[in-house]
Protein backbone atom coordinates (compact mmCIF):
# COMPACT_ATOMS: atom_id res chain seq x y z
CA UNK A 1 0.00 0.00 0.00
CA UNK A 2 1.65 3.20 -1.11
CA UNK A 3 -1.20 5.53 -0.19
CA UNK A 4 1.16 7.63 1.89
CA UNK A 5 2.36 9.32 -1.26
CA UNK A 6 -1.06 10.45 -2.48
CA UNK A 7 -2.20 13.75 -1.01
CA UNK A 8 -5.19 13.89 1.26
CA UNK A 9 -8.24 15.13 -0.55
CA UNK A 10 -10.79 17.73 0.46
CA UNK A 11 -13.69 15.56 -0.55
CA UNK A 12 -12.77 12.77 1.85
CA UNK A 13 -12.12 15.34 4.54
CA UNK A 14 -15.54 16.81 4.04
CA UNK A 15 -17.09 13.41 4.62
CA UNK A 16 -14.89 12.68 7.63
CA UNK A 17 -16.04 15.94 9.23
CA UNK A 18 -19.69 15.49 8.29
CA UNK A 19 -20.01 11.88 9.39
CA UNK A 20 -18.93 12.75 12.92
CA UNK A 21 -21.95 14.95 13.47
CA UNK A 22 -25.21 13.87 15.01
CA UNK A 23 -27.15 14.34 11.78
CA UNK A 24 -24.80 12.35 9.58
CA UNK A 25 -26.52 11.12 6.41
CA UNK A 26 -25.48 7.47 6.18
CA UNK A 27 -27.44 6.76 3.01
CA UNK A 28 -25.75 9.59 1.15
CA UNK A 29 -22.41 8.47 2.53
CA UNK A 30 -23.00 4.89 1.36
CA UNK A 31 -23.83 6.14 -2.13
CA UNK A 32 -20.70 8.27 -2.23
CA UNK A 33 -18.58 5.29 -1.14
CA UNK A 34 -20.13 2.93 -3.66
CA UNK A 35 -19.24 5.20 -6.51
CA UNK A 36 -15.61 4.18 -6.39
CA UNK A 37 -13.90 1.42 -4.40
CA UNK A 38 -10.96 3.67 -3.47
CA UNK A 39 -13.17 6.14 -1.60
CA UNK A 40 -13.45 4.03 1.52
CA UNK A 41 -9.71 4.13 2.04
CA UNK A 42 -9.56 7.84 1.27
CA UNK A 43 -12.14 8.33 3.96
CA UNK A 44 -10.19 6.13 6.40
CA UNK A 45 -7.08 8.17 5.81
CA UNK A 46 -8.92 11.42 6.33
CA UNK A 47 -10.45 10.16 9.58
CA UNK A 48 -7.08 8.94 10.84
CA UNK A 49 -5.41 12.26 9.96
CA UNK A 50 -8.24 14.21 11.56
CA UNK A 51 -7.94 12.18 14.71
CA UNK A 52 -4.16 12.60 14.85
CA UNK A 53 -4.00 16.34 14.52
CA UNK A 54 -7.02 16.90 16.69
CA UNK A 55 -5.05 15.19 19.44
CA UNK A 56 -2.11 17.50 18.64
CA UNK A 57 -4.23 20.61 18.92
CA UNK A 58 -6.00 19.35 22.03
CA UNK A 59 -2.61 18.88 23.63
CA UNK A 60 -1.62 22.47 22.98
CA UNK A 61 -2.58 25.22 25.31
CA UNK A 62 -4.82 27.83 23.72
CA UNK A 63 -2.14 30.20 24.96
CA UNK A 64 0.65 29.56 22.51
CA UNK A 65 4.13 29.23 23.95
CA UNK A 66 6.86 31.26 22.25
CA UNK A 67 9.45 29.06 20.61
CA UNK A 68 12.18 30.66 22.71
CA UNK A 69 10.48 29.31 25.83
CA UNK A 70 10.46 25.81 24.44
CA UNK A 71 14.16 25.98 23.82
CA UNK A 72 14.84 27.42 27.25
CA UNK A 73 13.06 24.44 28.76
CA UNK A 74 15.94 22.31 27.62
CA UNK A 75 18.47 24.27 29.63
CA UNK A 76 19.26 23.35 33.16
CA UNK A 77 17.14 24.50 36.03
CA UNK A 78 14.88 27.13 34.53
CA UNK A 79 12.07 27.49 37.06
CA UNK A 80 9.44 27.98 34.44
CA UNK A 81 5.70 28.27 34.47
CA UNK A 82 3.42 25.89 32.71
CA UNK A 83 -0.22 26.21 31.94
CA UNK A 84 -2.63 23.99 33.76
CA UNK A 85 -4.97 23.89 30.81
CA UNK A 86 -2.45 21.85 28.85
CA UNK A 87 -2.75 18.96 31.12
CA UNK A 88 -6.36 17.97 30.76
CA UNK A 89 -6.12 18.24 27.01
CA UNK A 90 -2.91 16.30 26.84
CA UNK A 91 -4.17 13.46 28.93
CA UNK A 92 -7.52 13.45 27.19
CA UNK A 93 -5.65 13.10 23.94
CA UNK A 94 -3.58 10.23 25.28
CA UNK A 95 -6.71 8.57 26.59
CA UNK A 96 -8.45 9.07 23.28
CA UNK A 97 -5.44 7.51 21.58
CA UNK A 98 -5.38 4.58 23.97
CA UNK A 99 -9.07 3.88 23.69
CA UNK A 100 -9.10 4.65 20.01
CA UNK A 101 -12.30 5.54 18.32
CA UNK A 102 -14.07 2.42 19.52
CA UNK A 103 -16.15 4.23 22.06
CA UNK A 104 -18.85 1.64 21.98
CA UNK A 105 -16.60 -1.40 22.04
CA UNK A 106 -14.26 -0.21 24.78
CA UNK A 107 -16.11 1.54 27.51
CA UNK A 108 -13.84 2.65 30.35
CA UNK A 109 -13.35 0.02 33.06
CA UNK A 110 -11.65 2.08 35.74
CA UNK A 111 -10.22 0.63 38.92
CA UNK A 112 -8.04 1.92 41.69
CA UNK A 113 -5.26 0.38 43.78
CA UNK A 114 -4.60 1.74 47.25
CA UNK A 115 -2.20 0.95 50.07
CA UNK A 116 -2.38 1.60 53.80
CA UNK A 117 0.56 3.42 55.43
CA UNK A 118 3.46 1.03 56.03
CA UNK A 119 2.27 -1.35 53.32
CA UNK A 120 3.73 -2.01 49.85
CA UNK A 121 1.97 -3.47 46.84
CA UNK A 122 2.96 -4.43 43.31
CA UNK A 123 0.45 -3.92 40.52
CA UNK A 124 1.17 -5.98 37.42
CA UNK A 125 -0.23 -4.45 34.25
CA UNK A 126 -1.40 -6.41 31.24
CA UNK A 127 1.48 -5.24 29.04
CA UNK A 128 4.17 -6.52 31.41
CA UNK A 129 4.72 -3.17 33.08
CA UNK A 130 4.45 -2.90 36.83
CA UNK A 131 3.87 -0.28 39.48
CA UNK A 132 5.14 -0.63 43.05
CA UNK A 133 3.05 1.39 45.47
CA UNK A 134 4.59 2.69 48.68
CA UNK A 135 2.40 2.92 51.76
CA UNK A 136 -0.44 5.44 51.90
CA UNK A 137 -0.62 5.69 48.13
CA UNK A 138 -3.32 5.43 45.51
CA UNK A 139 -3.32 5.07 41.73
CA UNK A 140 -6.25 5.02 39.33
CA UNK A 141 -6.07 2.73 36.30
CA UNK A 142 -8.34 1.49 33.52
CA UNK A 143 -8.50 -2.06 32.15
CA UNK A 144 -9.41 -0.69 28.75
CA UNK A 145 -6.74 2.01 28.73
CA UNK A 146 -3.76 0.01 29.99
CA UNK A 147 -1.16 2.65 29.14
CA UNK A 148 -2.53 5.38 31.38
CA UNK A 149 -2.17 5.84 35.16
CA UNK A 150 -3.35 8.64 37.41
CA UNK A 151 -1.34 9.05 40.61
CA UNK A 152 -3.80 10.17 43.23
CA UNK A 153 -1.48 10.38 46.23
CA UNK A 154 1.67 9.00 47.77
CA UNK A 155 4.64 7.51 45.97
CA UNK A 156 5.10 4.77 43.41
CA UNK A 157 7.81 3.29 41.24
CA UNK A 158 6.92 2.63 37.59
CA UNK A 159 8.68 -0.05 35.55
CA UNK A 160 7.30 0.53 32.09
CA UNK A 161 7.65 -1.74 29.10
CA UNK A 162 8.36 0.72 26.34
CA UNK A 163 6.20 0.80 23.24
CA UNK A 164 6.91 3.77 20.98
CA UNK A 165 3.48 3.45 19.37
CA UNK A 166 1.71 3.54 22.72
CA UNK A 167 3.58 5.72 25.17
CA UNK A 168 2.71 5.18 28.79
CA UNK A 169 1.19 8.34 30.24
CA UNK A 170 1.06 9.25 33.90
CA UNK A 171 -1.14 12.02 35.22
CA UNK A 172 -0.26 13.41 38.62
CA UNK A 173 -1.98 16.52 39.92
CA UNK A 174 -1.70 19.07 37.16
CA UNK A 175 1.28 17.36 35.57
CA UNK A 176 1.43 14.85 32.73
CA UNK A 177 4.42 12.74 31.88
CA UNK A 178 5.12 10.24 29.15
CA UNK A 179 7.66 7.42 29.38
CA UNK A 180 10.35 6.91 26.81
CA UNK A 181 11.30 3.44 28.08
CA UNK A 182 11.68 3.56 31.72
CA UNK A 183 11.95 3.03 35.45
CA UNK A 184 10.82 6.13 37.29
CA UNK A 185 9.37 7.22 40.59
CA UNK A 186 6.44 9.57 41.10
CA UNK A 187 5.63 11.15 44.43
CA UNK A 188 2.92 13.65 45.17
CA UNK A 189 1.40 15.47 48.12
CA UNK A 190 -0.56 18.65 48.61
CA UNK A 191 2.53 20.84 48.18
CA UNK A 192 4.53 19.34 45.38
CA UNK A 193 5.05 16.55 42.89
CA UNK A 194 8.41 14.95 42.29
CA UNK A 195 9.36 12.71 39.37
CA UNK A 196 12.74 10.93 39.42
CA UNK A 197 14.17 8.77 36.66
CA UNK A 198 16.32 5.69 37.31
CA UNK A 199 16.50 4.21 33.80
CA UNK A 200 15.43 5.20 30.31
CA UNK A 201 13.83 8.59 30.02
CA UNK A 202 10.62 10.41 30.76
CA UNK A 203 9.12 13.46 29.18
CA UNK A 204 7.39 15.83 31.53
CA UNK A 205 4.42 17.83 30.30
CA UNK A 206 4.94 16.46 26.77
CA UNK A 207 2.72 19.02 25.12
CA UNK A 208 3.81 22.07 27.04
CA UNK A 209 7.23 22.43 28.59
CA UNK A 210 8.24 19.04 27.11
CA UNK A 211 11.08 18.61 29.59
CA UNK A 212 13.03 15.45 28.88
CA UNK A 213 14.37 13.73 31.99
CA UNK A 214 17.26 11.32 31.73
CA UNK A 215 18.47 8.83 34.35
CA UNK A 216 19.71 10.69 37.39
CA UNK A 217 17.43 13.62 36.82
CA UNK A 218 14.32 14.66 38.68
CA UNK A 219 11.79 17.39 38.39
CA UNK A 220 9.83 19.07 41.16
CA UNK A 221 6.52 20.72 40.33
CA UNK A 222 5.48 23.13 43.02
CA UNK A 223 2.68 25.59 42.47
CA UNK A 224 3.06 26.28 38.78
CA UNK A 225 6.82 26.13 38.56
CA UNK A 226 8.95 23.23 37.39
CA UNK A 227 12.44 22.76 38.77
CA UNK A 228 14.93 20.24 37.50
CA UNK A 229 17.52 18.66 39.77
CA UNK A 230 20.02 15.85 39.89
CA UNK A 231 19.45 12.60 41.80
CA UNK A 232 21.45 9.43 42.32
CA UNK A 233 19.87 6.89 39.89
CA UNK A 234 20.48 4.11 42.42
CA UNK A 235 18.45 5.99 45.01
CA UNK A 236 15.34 6.19 42.86
CA UNK A 237 12.77 3.83 44.33
CA UNK A 238 15.18 2.77 47.08
CA UNK A 239 12.22 2.99 49.48
CA UNK A 240 11.29 -0.42 48.14
CA UNK A 241 14.22 -1.79 50.17
CA UNK A 242 13.42 0.43 53.13
CA UNK A 243 16.01 3.06 52.29
CA UNK A 244 14.95 6.68 51.97
CA UNK A 245 17.49 8.88 50.20
CA UNK A 246 17.11 12.64 50.34
CA UNK A 247 19.13 15.31 48.65
CA UNK A 248 18.12 18.71 49.93
CA UNK A 249 14.49 17.76 50.50
CA UNK A 250 12.29 19.92 52.79
CA UNK A 251 11.44 18.30 56.13
CA UNK A 252 7.69 18.37 55.46
CA UNK A 253 8.32 16.12 52.50
CA UNK A 254 10.66 13.90 54.54
CA UNK A 255 7.89 13.65 57.17
CA UNK A 256 5.32 12.69 54.54
CA UNK A 257 7.64 9.96 53.22
CA UNK A 258 8.24 8.64 56.72
CA UNK A 259 4.50 8.52 57.39
CA UNK A 260 3.98 6.32 54.37
CA UNK A 261 6.94 4.05 55.06
CA UNK A 262 6.65 3.71 58.84
CA UNK A 263 2.89 3.35 58.80
CA UNK A 264 2.42 6.01 61.42
CA UNK A 265 1.87 9.75 61.14
CA UNK A 266 4.96 11.97 61.13
CA UNK A 267 4.56 15.73 60.87
CA UNK A 268 7.01 18.61 60.55
CA UNK A 269 6.21 21.65 62.69
CA UNK A 270 5.93 24.84 60.58
CA UNK A 271 9.16 26.17 62.11
CA UNK A 272 11.21 23.35 60.56
CA UNK A 273 9.00 22.37 57.59
CA UNK A 274 11.10 24.21 54.99
CA UNK A 275 14.45 23.17 56.43
CA UNK A 276 16.16 20.76 54.06
CA UNK A 277 17.74 17.38 54.72
CA UNK A 278 20.46 15.58 52.84
CA UNK A 279 21.15 11.95 53.67
CA UNK A 280 19.72 8.45 53.81
CA UNK A 281 17.28 7.08 56.38
CA UNK A 282 16.89 3.38 57.12
CA UNK A 283 13.24 2.62 57.78
CA UNK A 284 13.89 -0.54 59.84
CA UNK A 285 16.44 1.21 62.03
CA UNK A 286 14.02 4.05 62.67
CA UNK A 287 11.28 1.62 63.61
CA UNK A 288 13.60 0.10 66.23
CA UNK A 289 15.01 3.39 67.48
CA UNK A 290 12.72 6.39 66.83
CA UNK A 291 15.15 8.65 68.76
CA UNK A 292 17.62 8.21 65.91
CA UNK A 293 15.44 10.35 63.69
CA UNK A 294 15.94 13.46 65.83
CA UNK A 295 19.73 13.09 65.65
CA UNK A 296 19.75 12.52 61.92
CA UNK A 297 17.41 15.38 61.06
CA UNK A 298 18.78 17.67 63.79
CA UNK A 299 15.34 18.22 65.29
CA UNK A 300 13.47 17.20 68.43
CA UNK A 301 10.98 14.38 67.87
CA UNK A 302 7.91 14.74 70.07
CA UNK A 303 5.86 11.55 70.34
CA UNK A 304 2.22 11.59 71.34
CA UNK A 305 -1.05 9.87 70.52
CA UNK A 306 -1.19 11.60 67.13
CA UNK A 307 2.19 10.30 66.06
CA UNK A 308 5.57 12.01 65.80
CA UNK A 309 6.14 15.71 65.34
CA UNK A 310 9.47 17.11 64.17
CA UNK A 311 10.15 20.31 66.10
CA UNK A 312 13.02 22.75 66.54
CA UNK A 313 15.27 21.99 69.49
CA UNK A 314 14.00 23.77 72.60
Amino acid sequence: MNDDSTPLDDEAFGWALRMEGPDADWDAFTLWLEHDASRSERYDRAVAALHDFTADVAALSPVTVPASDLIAANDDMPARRYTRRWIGGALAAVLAGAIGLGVWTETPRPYAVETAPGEQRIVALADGSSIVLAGGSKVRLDHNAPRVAMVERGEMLFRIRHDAAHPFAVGVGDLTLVDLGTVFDVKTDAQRTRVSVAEGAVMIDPDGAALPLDPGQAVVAEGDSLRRLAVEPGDVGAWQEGRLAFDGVPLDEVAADLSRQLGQPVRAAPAVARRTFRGTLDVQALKRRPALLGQLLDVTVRQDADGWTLEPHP
Partner: protein
Amino acid sequence: MANRDKLVRFLLARGAGDAAEDLAHDVWLKVAGRADGPIGNPLAYLYRAADTLMIDRYRARRQAEARDQAWSDRHAQEQPAADRSVAARQEAGEVAALLTTLGSRREAVFRRVRIDGAAQREVAAELGVSLSTVESDLRIASRALADLKERLR
Protein backbone atom coordinates in the same frame (compact mmCIF):
# COMPACT_ATOMS: atom_id res chain seq x y z
CA MET B 1 -34.16 -7.69 8.34
CA ALA B 2 -33.93 -4.46 6.34
CA ASN B 3 -31.51 -2.80 8.75
CA ARG B 4 -29.22 -5.79 8.53
CA ASP B 5 -29.11 -5.56 4.73
CA LYS B 6 -28.34 -1.87 4.89
CA LEU B 7 -25.54 -2.56 7.29
CA VAL B 8 -24.02 -5.24 5.05
CA ARG B 9 -24.26 -2.90 2.06
CA PHE B 10 -22.55 -0.16 4.04
CA LEU B 11 -19.77 -2.48 5.22
CA LEU B 12 -19.19 -3.62 1.64
CA ALA B 13 -18.91 0.00 0.55
CA ARG B 14 -16.47 0.52 3.43
CA GLY B 15 -14.23 -2.14 1.99
CA ALA B 16 -15.09 -5.05 4.28
CA GLY B 17 -15.23 -7.45 1.30
CA ASP B 18 -16.01 -11.04 2.18
CA ALA B 19 -16.10 -10.20 5.86
CA ALA B 20 -19.06 -7.84 5.47
CA GLU B 21 -21.72 -10.38 6.52
CA ASP B 22 -19.77 -11.50 9.57
CA LEU B 23 -18.93 -7.98 10.62
CA ALA B 24 -22.54 -6.90 10.26
CA HIS B 25 -23.49 -9.78 12.52
CA ASP B 26 -20.87 -8.77 15.10
CA VAL B 27 -21.98 -5.16 15.07
CA TRP B 28 -25.56 -6.28 15.42
CA LEU B 29 -24.83 -8.46 18.43
CA LYS B 30 -22.67 -5.86 20.13
CA VAL B 31 -25.14 -3.05 19.73
CA ALA B 32 -28.11 -5.23 20.65
CA GLY B 33 -26.28 -6.55 23.71
CA ARG B 34 -25.64 -3.17 25.21
CA ALA B 35 -27.60 -2.30 28.31
CA ASP B 36 -27.44 1.39 27.49
CA GLY B 37 -28.29 0.65 23.88
CA PRO B 38 -29.68 3.05 21.35
CA ILE B 39 -33.14 4.42 21.84
CA GLY B 40 -33.44 7.30 19.37
CA ASN B 41 -32.25 6.03 16.03
CA PRO B 42 -31.00 2.46 16.13
CA LEU B 43 -30.02 2.45 12.47
CA ALA B 44 -27.77 5.50 12.85
CA TYR B 45 -26.24 3.81 15.87
CA LEU B 46 -25.56 0.64 13.90
CA TYR B 47 -24.01 2.64 11.07
CA ARG B 48 -21.85 4.52 13.50
CA ALA B 49 -20.71 1.30 15.17
CA ALA B 50 -19.93 -0.30 11.81
CA ASP B 51 -18.01 2.77 10.67
CA THR B 52 -16.02 2.84 13.92
CA LEU B 53 -15.21 -0.83 13.49
CA MET B 54 -13.84 -0.21 10.00
CA ILE B 55 -11.85 2.80 11.21
CA ASP B 56 -10.29 0.63 13.93
CA ARG B 57 -9.45 -2.09 11.43
CA TYR B 58 -7.81 0.47 9.18
CA ARG B 59 -5.75 1.82 12.05
CA ALA B 60 -4.70 -1.66 13.13
CA ARG B 61 -3.63 -2.46 9.58
CA ARG B 62 -1.64 0.74 9.31
CA GLN B 63 0.10 0.07 12.60
CA ALA B 64 1.02 -3.44 11.50
CA GLU B 65 2.43 -2.04 8.25
CA ALA B 66 4.42 0.56 10.10
CA ARG B 67 5.89 -2.17 12.33
CA ASP B 68 6.80 -4.34 9.35
CA GLN B 69 8.38 -1.36 7.70
CA ALA B 70 10.49 -0.60 10.75
CA TRP B 71 11.42 -4.27 11.01
CA SER B 72 12.52 -4.67 7.41
CA ASP B 73 14.44 -1.40 7.41
CA ARG B 74 17.82 -2.29 8.86
CA HIS B 75 18.66 1.31 9.56
CA ALA B 76 15.46 2.04 11.43
CA GLN B 77 17.09 2.11 14.81
CA GLU B 78 15.28 3.53 17.76
CA GLN B 79 15.72 7.25 17.64
CA PRO B 80 17.56 8.50 20.71
CA ALA B 81 15.18 9.83 23.33
CA ALA B 82 16.58 13.33 23.08
CA ASP B 83 16.01 13.48 19.30
CA ARG B 84 12.47 12.27 19.67
CA SER B 85 11.65 14.82 22.30
CA VAL B 86 13.17 17.60 20.21
CA ALA B 87 11.11 16.46 17.23
CA ALA B 88 7.94 16.34 19.31
CA ARG B 89 8.65 19.81 20.61
CA GLN B 90 9.27 21.17 17.17
CA GLU B 91 6.10 19.60 15.88
CA ALA B 92 4.07 21.10 18.71
CA GLY B 93 5.63 24.45 17.86
CA GLU B 94 4.70 24.11 14.19
CA VAL B 95 1.11 23.18 15.00
CA ALA B 96 0.87 26.18 17.33
CA ALA B 97 2.33 28.46 14.67
CA LEU B 98 -0.13 27.17 12.09
CA LEU B 99 -3.07 27.84 14.38
CA THR B 100 -1.87 31.42 14.72
CA THR B 101 -1.75 31.86 10.95
CA LEU B 102 -5.23 30.44 10.57
CA GLY B 103 -6.63 33.17 12.77
CA SER B 104 -8.40 33.08 16.07
CA ARG B 105 -11.91 32.41 14.73
CA ARG B 106 -10.87 29.31 12.80
CA GLU B 107 -8.87 28.08 15.75
CA ALA B 108 -11.86 28.66 18.03
CA VAL B 109 -14.19 26.84 15.62
CA PHE B 110 -11.82 23.91 15.38
CA ARG B 111 -11.42 23.65 19.14
CA ARG B 112 -15.10 24.01 19.98
CA VAL B 113 -16.24 21.47 17.41
CA ARG B 114 -13.41 18.96 17.35
CA ILE B 115 -12.18 19.04 20.92
CA ASP B 116 -15.11 20.23 23.03
CA GLY B 117 -17.54 18.32 20.82
CA ALA B 118 -19.91 21.27 20.45
CA ALA B 119 -22.50 21.14 17.67
CA GLN B 120 -21.61 23.25 14.65
CA ARG B 121 -24.91 25.11 14.90
CA GLU B 122 -24.15 25.96 18.51
CA VAL B 123 -20.68 27.25 17.64
CA ALA B 124 -22.11 29.37 14.82
CA ALA B 125 -24.48 30.99 17.31
CA GLU B 126 -21.70 31.56 19.85
CA LEU B 127 -19.48 33.28 17.33
CA GLY B 128 -22.29 35.11 15.56
CA VAL B 129 -21.49 33.62 12.16
CA SER B 130 -23.45 31.44 9.75
CA LEU B 131 -23.39 27.66 9.83
CA SER B 132 -21.70 27.57 6.44
CA THR B 133 -18.91 29.79 7.79
CA VAL B 134 -18.33 27.31 10.60
CA GLU B 135 -18.32 24.45 8.09
CA SER B 136 -15.81 26.17 5.87
CA ASP B 137 -13.62 27.24 8.81
CA LEU B 138 -13.54 23.64 9.93
CA ARG B 139 -12.62 22.40 6.49
CA ILE B 140 -9.88 24.98 6.01
CA ALA B 141 -8.36 24.38 9.46
CA SER B 142 -8.43 20.59 9.01
CA ARG B 143 -6.94 20.81 5.57
CA ALA B 144 -4.12 23.06 6.76
CA LEU B 145 -3.36 20.79 9.71
CA ALA B 146 -3.40 17.72 7.49
CA ASP B 147 -0.99 19.37 5.05
CA LEU B 148 1.31 20.31 7.92
CA LYS B 149 1.31 16.73 9.23
CA GLU B 150 2.08 15.38 5.77
CA ARG B 151 4.97 17.78 5.44
CA LEU B 152 6.40 16.82 8.83
CA ARG B 153 6.21 13.12 8.12
